């Protein structure tokens, strides 16, 4: 915490908001009058509205730093100044060389601090207002600890802290109701091109393979929610992977609810195959698509974050998870406020092992499966009848609030890593158990 040195006695207590009957009155004026492009934004019939932000969310927005506006009372009229600032605990800290602000802070004056953000295209906007008292702070130890550098060159500036006694924030919510651009629910094929009829037909073809060839077994299936959206994250293996087909078939069979599988865009470009994938629940992996499925439609979405890095690895790297993507899908789950459920799949690495691969660059290459070496190119379509076990892990939930339009990249990376490490740990456990059984 800050070491705050207050010079002078607290004055102007009559302006304190502590006794105000409306606790978040301070946040009201800016947003109610907020115009985009000089004209009122329709909010009453927009399906959106004004959202009152929780204290934690206000602090998070303040924590992003940047430039805010500080308003201090003067004899003539309230003065307002833009400052770059950081949040330190419960204090907004900024630097100033200006006499007006220095005097106010020396006298411990009350002040208001405001930050906001707008998107004129989306017609979304937020603002946060902190009310408190100014104080001089001793700069010595904070100078290097706080990431607060003066933007104006060559001015010797002092540190000033505003205690956050009151905090309020508002957000103009964007339109969130379902668009009439989408097909009505229950149409076949649905909006994504998934057809329940095609799915049933595929199920009849896949089921014997699922049951007798791979003897697919599940554990921890109760971890997949019966209702509401969830992002299912699994490991990907096999030069011509069957894991998506089997996992989707298994979940739909056991839970009786559809699963959408995110796939590489390149597959959509293939004639017929792209359409067949879409009819079977395949959706091009794009964070917007994931968000719509998870948040607006509350569906189950299966993703293999390793992507082609998983399917092109050689047998030597089996059950060693490749690097995940940029975390776009974990971020989509965060934004949608749905859990991430890791699924460790054991067996797919042995059903089509690739001893070698033709390297393209450092990370990918064309894998040559053992079957192709033994039987020629057509062999690449035959999987060994390995028993496949899918182990569903407990859902990973995030401590980030849902519905934000921006998440700190560090949080997304950390969450992605948590998902990845729990999946890797489960894979290590599974494979050693399997070895014991076979030995």
């Amino acid at each position: 915490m800050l070491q705050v040195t207050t010079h002078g006695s607290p004055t102007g207590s009559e302006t304190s908001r502590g006794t105000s009957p409306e606790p978040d009155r301070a946040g009201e004026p800016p947003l109610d009058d907020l115009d985009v492009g000089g004209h009122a934004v329709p909010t009453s019939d927009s399906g959106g509205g004004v959202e009152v932000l929780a204290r934690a969310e206000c602090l998070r927005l303040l924590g992003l730093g940047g430039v805010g506006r500080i308003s201090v009372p003067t004899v003539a009229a309230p003065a307002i100044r833009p400052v770059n600032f950081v949040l330190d605990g419960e204090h907004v800290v900024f630097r100033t060389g200006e006499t007006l602000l220095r005097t106010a802070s020396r006298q411990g004056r009350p002040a208001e601090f405001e930050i906001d953000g707008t998107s004129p295209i989306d017609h979304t906007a937020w603002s946060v207002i902190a009310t408190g008292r100014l104080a001089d702070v001793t700069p010595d130890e904070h100078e290097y600890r706080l990431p607060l550098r003066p933007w104006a060159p060559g001015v010797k500036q002092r540190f000033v802290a505003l205690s956050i006694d009151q905090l309020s924030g508002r957000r103009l919510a964007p339109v969130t109701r379902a668009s009439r651009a989408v097909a009505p629910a229950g149409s076949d094929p649905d909006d994504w091109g998934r057809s329940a009829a095609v799915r049933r037909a595929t199920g009849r073809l896949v089921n014997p393979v699922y049951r007798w060839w791979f003897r697919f077994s599940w554990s921890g299936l109760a971890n997949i929610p019966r209702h509401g959206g969830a992002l299912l994250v699994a490991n990907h293996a096999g030069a011509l992977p069957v894991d998506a087909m089997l996992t989707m078939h298994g979940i739909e069979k056991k839970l009786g609810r559809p699963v959408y599988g995110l796939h590489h865009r390149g597959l959509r470009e293939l004639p017929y195959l792209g359409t067949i994938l879409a009819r079977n629940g395949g959706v091009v992996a794009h964070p917007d698509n994931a968000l719509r499925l998870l948040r607006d439609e509350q569906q189950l979405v299966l993703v293999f974050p390793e992507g082609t890095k998983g399917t092109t690895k050689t047998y030597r790297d089996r059950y060693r998870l490749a690097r995940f993507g940029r975390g776009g899908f974990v971020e989509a789950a965060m934004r949608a406020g749905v859990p991430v459920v890791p699924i460790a799949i054991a067996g797919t690495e042995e059903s089509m092992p690739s001893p070698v691969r033709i390297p393209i660059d450092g990370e990918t290459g064309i894998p040559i499966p053992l079957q192709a070496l033994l039987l020629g190119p057509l062999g690449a379509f035959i999987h060994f009848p390995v028993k496949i076990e899918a182990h569903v892990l407990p859902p990973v939930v995030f401590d980030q609030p849902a519905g934000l339009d921006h998440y700190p990249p560090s949080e997304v990376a950390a969450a992605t890593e948590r998902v990845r490490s729990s999946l890797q740990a489960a894979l290590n456990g599974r494979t050693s158990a399997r070895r014991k059984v076979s030995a």
Partner: protein
Amino acid sequence: MSGRRTLVTGTDQPLGAAVATRLRLGNEVVAIGEEFGYDDVADLVMDEQIDTIIHAGLVRWCPQISVDVIATMRIAAAASQPASTVRNVIVASSTMIYPASSDAPRLHRESQELEPSGGSVAAGLVEAEGYVRSLAEANSHLCVAILRLADLGGLRPQGPLSRLLRGGFPALPAIAGFDPPVQLLDLDDAAAALDHAAERSLTGVYNVAGDGQLWWSAAARLASRRTFPVAVSTPSWMGLFAHRIGVPLLDPDTSDTLRFGRVADTAKFEATGFTPTRSSTQCASDARPSRYNK
């Protein structure tokens, strides 16, 4: 609302003509088309004391789609000149600004980042919309709205897909192995949407399309046409050459649309209180020959 003095551009084309016809009731309308040339539009705006500009001439649909960036620059300059009486500027753009590609999101939103390749229709639209945005940013007293209209269909089809549905070929081209979702908008609904935006003094960018989406195969069925599978999409140079010699080959954008489709999220415009009278499905069935070949 009555008493507006409106300048409508692009009235040599069906969309502009429909807007001008619609506005004639209760409004003073100045209509200009291609032949006017847009050179003197600034003087025209001053002389006629125009308060609303509906720029329906951004996209020329016939005989081939082109984007009139220069006209848009002139309109923007006319609206922003000092002492101008203009208060509302509504620009009819197109959802063709969104990519029809395998990695595009399934539903396009107004806030999406756009990076079209050079020379395409989308690139022209991005450039033109850029001028309109600068106009809005530099003139906070103006209400500037951009309406991205879906493929214009109905009884007077203008959009490339609607023209295929209505067109004179015996069979409807479709790319083999693909069945994309498409979205259509009735021409009169488009005119009504532009009027609505002017009346409500809307600001910002909005997608406008008929309700729902439909698969290309279903659209062909509704229009009572058989599809003719084209094995591959044609390279762009071939399409351009074919156009030049008058062969109706698919242009690159249409062949992309017939593979991956293009559907825009219309929730934002719906929230302003506008409901199109014809859905995408109805627009496709409007292309059925029996409706106009009587």
